[in-house]
């Protein structure tokens, strides 16, 4: 009993610390990070010094052993200060979860997690491939194994913080004879890889994620190949965790826009106490949508956490489960754009200005990225197929 209270207090202290980092460090540099499309190095130096990159590594391996619910809370808080910083943090945690959940039997990966705790390695991901696009379950490149070593080459048009990461998890075919869907995931050491730039990252939003493209050429030891098929990693971990951490940081971003709007409504009410401002009605509408967005994330999160606790691995394989996770992504990415657009109406010209202290420009530009990172139409297409593969939807 006592220990659980302590764990709770510890987490509350961590949240308070992250809030403080958000106020004092992350928000002040967010404008720079966005304008210059640069990596938020100061934020990640601070994260590393308080071991935030190993929050999801189990305590037995030296990590903080936070639950996915707690990791999502951190993403949500960060999303309120700088969505790029939050996105990098979230994407890193997805990769950590893929190793934590699927590499228990591998001494190499167990040691890697211990090293990650000590060195606070930053992990990136290269699933997208030139000529394949956003179809995660399809690869053209193949890992080539000779004896104890492997070679892997991939044309990756989007690798977030690829140049800053210490390791990159790369999806590929099992061998050069394998079908595109017969995939593995390989942990590539960036120092042992050659990354030749093939595309830039001058985008509308999420500019600080520095997601430019590379021709990646790498080699290493076969132990760096994750010991289970990528299909399993995707179904049980990468797919649900991605949409949960993304949904959480988008929630933080939407919440911040609503908070800015609320500030202007309050100011208007103060100025003219006799009549409530019209914008209060708009605010209440947008708050309803925020409520829905939060409920979406919360419901899917509770469900995932419950399945993890009961070790219900078969449930993750059900088409109805994948459909639900996709619904979370579709709903929250589209609510995000609606919410932020409506807050612009409430805040008015001061939100439209780039150089205003209550500018919503970055919020709006970031918001539009959510539907594209794994294109919503691709997801809807997939969902429409799965609708026929579901009986009761539960």
């Amino acid at each position, binding site marked *: 009993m006592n220990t659980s209270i302590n764990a709770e207090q510890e987490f509350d202290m961590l949240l308070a610390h992250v809030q403080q980092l958000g106020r004092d460090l992350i928000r002040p540099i967010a404008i720079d990070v966005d304008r210059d499309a640069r990596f938020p190095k100061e934020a990640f130096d601070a994260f590393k010094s308080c071991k935030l990159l190993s929050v999801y590594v189990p305590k037995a391996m030296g990590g903080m052993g936070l639950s996915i619910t707690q990791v999502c809370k951190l993403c949500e808080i960060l999303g309120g200060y700088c969505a790029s910083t939050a996105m990098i943090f979230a994407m890193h945690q997805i990769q950590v979860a893929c190793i934590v959940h699927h590499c228990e039997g591998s001494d190499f990966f167990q040691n890697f997690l211990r090293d990650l705790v000590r060195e606070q390695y930053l992990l990136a991901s290269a699933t997208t491939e030139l000529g394949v696009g956003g179809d995660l379950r399809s690869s053209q490149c193949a890992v080539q194994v000779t004896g104890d070593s492997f070679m892997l080459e991939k044309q990756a048009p989007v690798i977030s913080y690829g140049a800053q990461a210490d390791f990159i998890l790369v999806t590929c075919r099992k061998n050069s004879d394998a*079908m595109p*869907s*017969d995939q593995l995931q390989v942990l590539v050491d960036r120092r042992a890889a050659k990354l030749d730039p093939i595309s830039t990252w001058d985008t509308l939003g999420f500019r600080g994620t520095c997601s430019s493209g590379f021709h990646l050429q790498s080699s290493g030891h076969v132990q760096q190949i994750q010991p289970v098929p990528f299909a399993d990693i995707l179904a049980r971990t990468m797919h649900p965790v991605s949409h949960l951490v993304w949904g959480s940081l988008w929630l933080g971003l939407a919440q911040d826009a609503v908070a800015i709007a609320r500030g202007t409504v309050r100011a208007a009410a103060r100025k003219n106490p006799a009549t409530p401002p019209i914008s209060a009605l708009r605010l209440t509408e947008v708050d309803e949508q925020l409520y829905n967005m939060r409920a979406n994330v919360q419901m899917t999160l509770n469900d995932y956490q419950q399945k993890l606790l009961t070790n219900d691995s078969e449930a993750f*394989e*059900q*088409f109805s489960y994948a459909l639900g996770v996709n619904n979370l992504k579709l709903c929250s990415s589209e609510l995000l754009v609606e919410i932020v657009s409506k807050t612009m109406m409430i805040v008015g010209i001061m939100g439209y200005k780039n150089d205003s202290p209550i500018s919503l420009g970055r919020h709006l530009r970031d918001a539009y990225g959510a539907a594209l990172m794994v294109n919503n139409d691709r997801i809807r297409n997939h969902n429409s197929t799965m609708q*026929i*593969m*579901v*009986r009761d939807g539960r």
Partner: protein
Amino acid sequence: MYASTIRDILTKHARLPHDVNTLTLTDDLYDNGLTSLSTVNIMLAIEDAFDIEFPDTKLNRKTFSSIESLVETVTELLNR
């Protein structure tokens, strides 16, 4: 005993790049090119052929991942 019916259904609906009869009972169908769209058609064809309905607990990737698991599932549903 249901394997040959299932092989026939796969031949017709799975749209794999190679002959279904060259696959063993345990070969992974997804690794051999099965797509989610073909999975739907296989499910519908199996439901019709055996006059069964897959419950949600069987509507997962594992069920459709090999001829063996399809045979097991059909057997289980027919014996209910």
